């Protein structure tokens, strides 16, 4: 089966019909929610701390629901208008944006207490238009994200890397933008259940105290 990111750009693959199907599929929804829970756990926020969290590629708002349940206020963006349409129909509680991660994000420095992203990062490694250079897009994304996170905050990306080169490309870009971190692999010995989480740290908290 060919990988969806090889078929067409995300806003096409997740067009109207596919967006509705994707959001209505309970098996996919359950897996997405589980991965979102794991990503939120890896954010490592203090118990009971209500954060302001960014969801990159929020889709129909499934991962946002998990954030909401954990008491966080969230902001999400997606490149697929059809997916955002579904999010509206499902009365997603976060603030939604139509945005392309590869163009960078438009938030002031130190805005977010954390960032999660489910099944999106591999899309950024594609060149869907001749003007798309994966390395430039990843760098633009990571540099603006780094700035938009408060010091000490984490960004957790569940993704489906195609190969080791892709992991190196992504990690290299993130590190050049100031991030530290590494890869967490859940169920490494199960072909089906194996999940990759790229965990990035945006610098360190000042004096071990959370910045207000």
């Amino acid at each position, binding site marked *: 089966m060919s990988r969806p990111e090889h078929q067409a750009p995300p806003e096409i693959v997740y067009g109207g019909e596919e967006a509705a199907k994707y959001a209505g599929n309970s098996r996919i929804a359950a897996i997405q929610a589980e991965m979102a829970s794991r990503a939120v756990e890896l954010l490592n926020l203090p118990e009971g701390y*209500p954060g302001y969290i960014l969801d990159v590629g929020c889709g129909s708002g499934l991962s946002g629901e998990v954030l909401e349940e954990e008491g966080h206020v969230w902001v999400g963006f997606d490149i697929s208008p059809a997916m955002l349409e579904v999010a509206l129909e499902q009365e997603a509680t976060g603030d939604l*944006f139509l945005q392309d991660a590869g163009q960078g994000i438009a938030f002031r420095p130190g805005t977010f207490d954390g960032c999660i992203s489910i099944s999106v990062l591999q899309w950024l490694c594609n060149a869907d238009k001749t003007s798309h250079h994966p390395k430039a897009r990843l760098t633009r994304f990571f540099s*603006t994200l780094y700035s938009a996170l408060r010091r000490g905050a984490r960004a957790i990306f569940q993704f489906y890397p195609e190969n080791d080169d892709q992991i190196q490309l992504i990690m290299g870009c993130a590190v050049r933008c100031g991030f530290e971190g590494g890869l967490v692999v859940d169920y490494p010995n199960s072909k089906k259940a194996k999940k990759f989480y790229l965990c990035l740290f945006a610098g360190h908290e000042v004096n071990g105290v959370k910045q*207000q």
Partner: protein
Amino acid sequence: MRLITHNMLQCHVRGCNANNFPLELQEVVLEQEEAEMNEDFLRNMLGKLEYDALVATCHKLDINDLPVTLPEDAQYNEEFLQILHRIILETHVKSGKMVCPNCNHTYSIRDGIPNMLLAEHEV
């Protein structure tokens, strides 16, 4: 989009790095939606808010309930936090546009969703 999120936005057109905040709201339609108040969250956000920009934005929207300067005891001022909650977490921009004060780029808002996509030459 809630007003709290508008307060966190800045223009991201290539090369537009100064005076690119706050994006000016124009021709907006607002809607109030009740939300549960979370004082811990508000306290967490106080340090991130650009308060002057928030007050200026509110004035343009004809919302005049906020004190002009942030109260010194803001963190524990119940009355102030309630006003703040109503304004930044219960006031939604449903449609309109946001214009960058520096480069004049216009971001349109439809169904509450701002369109932040840029043309190739703006990236």
